[in-house]
């Protein structure tokens, strides 16, 4: 039994380990390790396409995670006191947002936004005070953030709501009885209790957006995120430079995930 478990863990981690190992390979091939070198990291970090894609990914992940955490937490708190049809509708939306495959979300967002933009752009041009200077709506940062924010928000609502429902409600009543204002109660009683949930939700949302390929592939417009760059480089052939980029991406998500997990676990015990 133990040996079996060990074998599964090896299956899960050896491929990741090999990616990391061969990112330090001096030679080019996966079948032989010809010496230690960090040249591929230098090459990856010196590649302007990589740094630009990294910046795009970082901007999108940060913005979508911040917005999702804020609006998701607000919704999770408000949903406590909502019952009836509105509650059912929200639950259904959260469920659909999580369950509909990313690829369907991606194409649906693409065609909906392109259609809406095609319709709005002429109106915008006609209404704009300065002739021929009207901004053109197009796919890019905005659509990436909005599309990633959707899944992230559903995620934050699920996680924060679990914390909210596990919260000791008598503390809130006690705080109100002792004369605290609703805002004071929120800041001093509710927020400290749900904060681990918000933080974990934020980290997961960031990781999701930073790693997402399929939704970004459709809605990125002229922007290139890091996963899109990696995908198109892999199509041109396997190189140790991709291993170096991959190792860095994995390292970023591993650090964030372990942080999120330990926050959630500590929250469960407390």
């Amino acid at each position: 039994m133990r040996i079996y478990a060990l074998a599964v863990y090896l299956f899960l981690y050896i491929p990741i380990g090999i990616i990391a190992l061969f990112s330090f390979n001096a030679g080019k091939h996966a079948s032989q390790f010809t010496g230690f070198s960090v040249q591929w990291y230098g090459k990856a970090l010196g590649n302007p396409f990589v740094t630009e894609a990294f910046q795009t990914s970082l901007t999108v992940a940060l913005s979508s995670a911040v917005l999702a955490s804020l609006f998701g937490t607000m919704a999770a708190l408000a949903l406590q006191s909502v019952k009836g049809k509105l509650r059912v509708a929200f639950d259904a939306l959260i469920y659909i947002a999580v369950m509909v495959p990313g690829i369907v979300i991606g194409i649906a967002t693409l065609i909906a936004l392109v259609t809406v933009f095609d319709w709005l752009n002429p109106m915008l041009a006609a209404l704009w005070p300065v002739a021929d200077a009207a901004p053109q709506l197009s796919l890019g940062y905005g659509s990436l953030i909005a599309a990633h924010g959707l899944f992230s928000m559903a995620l934050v609502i699920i996680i924060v709501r679990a914390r909210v429902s596990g919260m000791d409600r008598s503390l809130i009543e006690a705080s109100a009885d002792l004369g605290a204002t609703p805002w004071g109660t929120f800041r001093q009683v509710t927020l400290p209790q749900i904060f681990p949930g918000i933080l974990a939700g934020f980290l997961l949302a960031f990781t999701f957006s930073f790693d997402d390929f399929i939704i970004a592939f459709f809605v990125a417009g002229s922007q290139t995120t890091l996963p899109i760059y990696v995908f198109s480089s892999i199509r041109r052939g396997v190189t140790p430079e991709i291993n170096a980029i991959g190792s860095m991406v994995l390292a970023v998500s591993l650090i964030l995930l372990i942080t999120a997990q330990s926050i959630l676990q500590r929250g469960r015990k407390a």
Partner: protein
Amino acid sequence: MMRPRYRTALFLLPAGAWFFAMLVLPLVVVFVFSFGERGPAGGYVPAFTFDNFLNLGSRWAAFKNTLVLAPVGTFVCLLIAYPLAYFLAIRANAKWRTLLLILVIVPFWTSILIRSYAWIFLLGGQGLPALLNALGLGNPRLINTPFAVLVGIVYGYLPLMVFPIYVSLERLDKRLLEASSDLGCTPARTFFNVTLPMSMAGVATGCMLVFILLMGEFLIPAMLGGGKVFFVGNALVDLFLQSRNWAFGSAVAMALVLVMLITVTAYMRVTRRWAGGRDDISLM
């Protein structure tokens, strides 16, 4: 001070608007477009026709691959995941259990792109085949085969299968197992008569989650199937980004969602009968 009712509405507004603009509206557009026609230069022309749905047969190969490899992949995941979940929930040292569980879940949240790339690297010409060749074991072709796609699927989705099964096994009252063995059952009989039936809810949840996500998979077949083993997801990418046939693409997407809905509903029915209610599981 604001009345609580208005405050609730105000708090729900941003999320509600976001869900409407980025989820409800796009899905309605896909539904409407699926009855339309392709424009001369691609895109969409309004129309009301069922031609796109009648034409679904032309993408039968993609549906067939998906409907074969998704259940097979789910089943292989289950076979590998169950013993591990059993070990974690019942046999593992309580001190290490949390860490071991985190180690299973973490890969699921790391980039599936990089993890699939790892298998291109391992199964590609310079990886395992070259190693096997050097050992004199022949030079099998591994990459761009259904086998490679299956390996990628199992690698990608194993964590998602382990977690719900673990949850249901962990909740199981361990005294039942003792009672069963005290009453003279062999370990095998205890397993098949007590443990397995009581973990069926977790098994069903895990299978459903993995199956749903596999139905919409694009990356794994694109990277490890090399255009030979393609899923509905790959057909969708082709229709929307290459041939720009939005109307037909929408119909394919609708068909995909419909197949998923039917499967999920059927699954839920069966699960209810097995276990009297679905295990509420979280993905973390």
